[in-house]
């Protein structure tokens, strides 16, 4: 874990510099003691030199998080900040390294916690920093649960703009999409958080949402009703993004509106700003039974959230950026949901947009949703 490439504050809490010497904290010089993560490796001379250089002047070259602002020459303000930071480090370090019973693992855990607390905004990280961040989170998960997850930091690809279409004629209200979404995205089971709402509407009343029921518990399709799903529409002009005081939510280049759960301060301004009920808040610590956790994760997608932060539909970024359909699309038994690349002229979504009479909700607000409705 102590890759010298790191661009944030690092603690060395009295741990033997295991990675750089190639020996392990347990005393063995060859692998197999179990305290190394799989990506540890023996260092070559070159790497060692690079690491040594990094260790001495690395801070000057590479910055992130706390460091993003530590890159100026030392003036009084910076000095004060550094002092505060070192005080904090000191306090943490003392408490961990003075503990006789804590082993290397708990020290590593403490270091990860520290780095997590003071890491920067994901949006502003370079690719290496993103990679290091997800590596750290994977290691943290391993330390805590003994199990491995895979977390991706894959960026938006060029010439991709995701769009979604919903066939109102086909939807029968089975809610398989809702269940698939909850399972795929590791949402809190306790509070039954759901990104997708299926509105059951009466035939003959048109789209009267205020008379619709989005919380039904009966056999579907119910006589004399039709169904319509809503979720985050990934607007091209998202009002939620503008209002965020810390830029914890933004629109990615492939059109996904995402949240950095660790940067969010939980003010819920975005929730008030969203005209589509697309955002959810973690009013409590989200809990998912270990057996049900989806281990295929993305930093901006379905990784585990903490209490007091916003989350939302990401069109299953962990799937869509890997070339798959979102879980809701795959789960839909009626084929009412269509997802694809708007920039690809041969995609199904483009065919729908060009051949069907499509419309969007609340277009008068100027939010430009990338979520269209149509009927057969």
């Amino acid at each position: 874990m102590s890759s010298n490439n790191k661009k944030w504050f690092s603690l060395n809490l009295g741990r033997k510099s295991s990675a750089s010497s190639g020996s392990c904290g347990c005393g063995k010089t060859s692998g197999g003691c179990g305290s190394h993560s799989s990506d540890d490796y023996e260092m070559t001379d070159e790497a060692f030199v690079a690491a040594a250089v990094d260790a001495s002047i690395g801070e000057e070259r590479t910055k992130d998080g706390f460091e993003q602002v530590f890159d100026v020459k030392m003036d009084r303000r910076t000095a004060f900040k550094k002092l505060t930071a070192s005080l904090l480090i000191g306090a943490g370090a003392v408490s961990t390294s003075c503990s006789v019973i804590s082993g290397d693992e708990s020290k590593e855990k403490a270091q990860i916690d520290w780095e997590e607390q003071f890491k920067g905004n994901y949006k502003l990280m370079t690719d290496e920093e993103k990679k290091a961040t997800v590596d750290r989170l994977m290691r943290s998960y391993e330390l805590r649960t003994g199990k491995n997850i895979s977390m991706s930091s894959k960026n938006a690809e060029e010439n991709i703009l995701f769009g979604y279409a919903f066939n109102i004629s086909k939807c029968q209200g089975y809610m398989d999409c809702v269940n698939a979404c909850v399972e795929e995205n590791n949402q809190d089971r306790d509070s039954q958080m759901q990104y997708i709402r299926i509105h059951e509407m009466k035939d003959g009343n048109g789209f009267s949402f205020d008379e619709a029921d989005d919380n039904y518990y009966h056999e579907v399709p119910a006589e004399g009703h039709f169904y319509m799903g809503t979720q985050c529409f990934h607007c091209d002009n998202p009002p939620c993004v503008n209002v965020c005081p810390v830029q914890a939510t933004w629109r990615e280049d492939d059109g996904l509106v995402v949240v950095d759960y660790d940067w969010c301060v939980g003010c819920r301004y975005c929730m008030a700003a969203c005209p589509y009920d697309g955002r959810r808040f973690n009013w409590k610590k989200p809990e998912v039974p270990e057996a049900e956790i989806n281990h295929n994760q993305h930093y901006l997608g379905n990784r585990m959230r903490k209490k007091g932060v916003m989350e939302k539909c990401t069109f299953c970024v962990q799937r869509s950026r890997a070339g798959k359909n979102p879980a809701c699309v795959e789960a839909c038994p009626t084929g009412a949901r269509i997802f694809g690349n708007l920039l690809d002229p041969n995609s199904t979504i483009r065919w729908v947009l060009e051949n069907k009479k499509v419309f969007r909700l609340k277009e008068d607000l100027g939010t430009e949703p990338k979520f269209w409705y149509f009927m057969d």
Partner: protein
Amino acid sequence: MKQIKVFGSLVKDSLDTITHGNVKYHIWMGVLTFMMLVGMYCYSIQLSEGLQVTGMTDRVSWGLYISNFTFLVGVAAAAVMLVMPTYVLHDVDFKQAVLIGEGLAVSALIMCLAFVIADMGGPSVLWHMIPGLGVFNFPNSMLTWDVLVLNGYLFLNITIPFYILFRHYQGKEAKSKVYVPGAILSVFWAVGIHLVTAFLYQGLQARPFWNNALLGPRFLASAFAAGPALIILVLAMIRNFTAFKIEDKTLKKIAMVVTVAAQINLIMLVSELFKEFYAPTHHSESAYYLFFGLHGKDALLPWIWTAIPLNILATVMLTFHKLRNNPKVLYFCCFILFIAIWIEKGFGLIVPGFIPGPYGKISEYTPTGIEIGVTLGIWALGAFVFTILARTAIGIELGQLRYKKNKQ
């Protein structure tokens, strides 16, 4: 060096003053301390359990905290109604009251900040919002504007009275050259804090109840009614309990301010109601919910139908000179006006913004005990801070606190 010594002595003298008093004073401070402790206990539960202990949900995601925050920004802004006549227009009648007004602004701002922090899901990462250290989404997010103007206003309202009191403490006259530019700035700033806070809501196209051009001006009018009303009550109390002299003339002038602001506020209310109910659209549903209830859901009816009659009664009574010039009637009017605007600008404004939801879902909001506990705790904090500030300021103004004089 000398300044620091004087400051040290001021702090010592001030501590001396605020820790001594008669039995009533100690009971007052004791009760406030107890309420703050209860509030802190409630907040500690909220910290460990998360915001689920409040009545807020995904459907109504702002509640009592943000309501009180909004209202208190208005109270803080109201100090301008004393600052402007005193420092800018040189009306001597306000001179005695202005320090109290600024003290009130400081404590209202501290309460505002406390309410915002209480509402945050992640107070431990609030440093993300510190400009330079975190990422400050300025100027896009109105919330960042609000952070700037509130803290700036707090700074102005601490430094100006502090400078004046600090000079008086040393037995010197405060130089108007030094503080008048700050005072003039704070006049504009006060309008700014409330307008920016209104824009926070006004700028959301998702919430038609707030997305209304009258919201900002109405915020100002109601603030300049409720704030000075509170100042009158506080001044009356100070006059009663301390030797600090506040003339009837001063109270009458502030009462005039309250009256005019309340009248304007009422006109704007009528205008709003006309627009919502003469030709109701889909966007009027929140107003319908607030005033009449929707589909049998009517949790806010008792509140708003308390607020509106109180508001009208107070405004009408204040309008008649005879009634307004009678201190007892004046205090009563100020009290009911304060309550009415607290309801109207508090959850009468915030909660209906979320009801019905974006797709017409009506789920109601009721604050929980923990939420109320934290809220009361923060109000107690404000009263506590204000008492400390006022006692020190009055001590200095009366000449009881003087540098060197009390040095043996």
